[in-house]
């Protein structure tokens, strides 16, 4: 089984979110980047498990700059065989997806896995766009994935519940919690990652369909109003008269 996993970076979840250049750019000052958790914990680990039971290869692909190679090496340390970096700024989801689709086009991947979303832009767009560009079926938010010959059997989150679906290969799947258990890279993996192939390929010419023009922070919360645990009537009355939510 030949598997491709899309790996993106995201700011560590505890990073302070701030903007510079007149609120048009994310302030990277002091921000620690990690492998986007969904990509690492679910997509990549499930790909490795499939490789371990069925044989094959796991390739990771990142659309990003040279600075992202630290994050790529981390994913290699967890166990991917090789990495490809498409040398470009991942401007918007369409741009990113078409780059990945162009790379994957004639490589014969059986399965393309991504995380359910990046935690910075939370778009949940890239995987569906890859699928459409390659005319493949797509199953999103999968929480369980099993391979049965040339068919995939999956469970996915669906409108507050769960759906069981079946789809033929090749296919694109975005991975959510439940898919696999997080793996901690060991020393051997970290050493091996240093010498695993990391190929850099140039970007294709692709249009940007959207652009982010600026950012704002949510209005600051006014101070919390404390209510005595013995006076729930007051809370109800505030929720009705002041907050107007009940």
């Amino acid at each position, binding site marked *: 089984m030949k598997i491709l996993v899309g790996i993106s970076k995201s700011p560590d979840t505890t990073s302070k979110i701030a*903007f510079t250049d007149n609120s048009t750019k994310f302030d990277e000052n002091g921000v620690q980047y990690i492998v986007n958790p969904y990509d690492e914990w679910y997509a990549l680990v499930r790909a490795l498990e499939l490789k371990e039971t069925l044989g094959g290869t796991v390739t990771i692909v990142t659309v990003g700059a040279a600075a992202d190679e630290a994050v790529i090496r981390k994913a290699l340390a967890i166990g991917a065989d090789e990495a490809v970096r498409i040398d470009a700024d991942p401007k918007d989801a369409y741009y990113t997806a078409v780059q990945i689709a162009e790379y994957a086009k004639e490589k014969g991947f059986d399965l393309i896995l991504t995380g359910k979303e990046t935690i910075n832009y939370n778009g949940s767009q890239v995987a569906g766009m890859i699928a459409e560009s390659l005319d493949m079926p797509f199953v999103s938010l999968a929480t369980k994935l099993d391979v049965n010959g040339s068919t995939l059997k999956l469970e996915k989150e669906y*409108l*507050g519940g769960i*759906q069981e679906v079946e789809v033929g290969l090749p296919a694109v799947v975005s991975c959510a919690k439940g898919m696999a258990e997080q793996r901690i890279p060991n020393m051997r993996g970290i050493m091996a990652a240093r010498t695993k192939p990391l190929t850099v390929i140039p970007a294709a010419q692709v249009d940007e369909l959207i652009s982010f023009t600026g950012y704002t922070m949510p209005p600051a919360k006014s101070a919390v109003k404390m209510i005595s645990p013995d006076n729930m009537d007051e*809370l109800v009355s505030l929720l009705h008269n002041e907050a107007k939510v009940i």
Partner: protein
Amino acid sequence: MSVLVYINGVHGIGKNAFEAVTYGKKLGDVTVVTNGNVDDAALAKLGEYGASKILVDKSLNNADDQQLTKMIENAANQTGASTIVFVHDHIAKNVAPRLSVRLKAGLVSGAIALPDGDGTIKVNVFSGKAFGSVKVNTAKKIISLLPNSIQPENNGGSAAVESFSANAGDTKVKVLATKQPEGDIPLPEADLVVSAGRGLKGPENWGIVEDLAKALGAATACSRPVSDADWRPHHEHVGQTGIAIRPNLYIAAGISGAIQHLAGVNGSKTIVVINTDPEAPFFKAADYGVVGDAFEVLPRLTEAVKKFKASH
């Protein structure tokens, strides 16, 4: 301007559909395209919120996202729509990106507001910790609207319902089973949510959470350790790794308010926190706080809500 709104009719037409139609109406003349075995009375209701025409393919019940994409593309071509609006749910998360590629139309994913004066549209970024303004560079636009972002407006209009042949091709994704919580209010759609965390100590204690939810007509939710321990079903888990919700009221009992939990709920209009620890970080994100034992405070709050409901 011609606007096309996609509504999935398979599971019935709810509040989020009225929000999407209301949103579309503010942008132009709205045609709705929908699929599934949905009755005409429910469809007609969309007219009250501003749709002038409804195209429905009732035969398309278990459509996969490639079929839905084709159907919406066909409807967009037929109506000449320049803007296509989705409800940002699990269906839109598959279909809208595909449609964006097919139509080469810029996609605003997770919009939370109508376009600003300069035409940019606000979306949630960084797990709800900030907003981004998105400019669409293409003539055709796709907007996927986050639930609870706009107040539905019933203008008492009416819509012509026409049957529509989706011409969607074959299914590639076969649905074997769909398990949805029965009778409950789906969490992503809920206006009111009562949530609890590890402070509740065990699954056997959730009765007091459910009682309050029932008294309010609220959905229930939980923190991640609670669903990890199987105290509650996974679909109730909110936060960065669970689902993000934006209810009008979020009541959190026995939840510390870790940053990853807040990521899923900080879009709530009003937050009430009940915690024994006055230093719990959640109080910083709360509108109303109660320092107290959830085992005492929740039943008291339930009684107070019942009393209020009886007199209103």
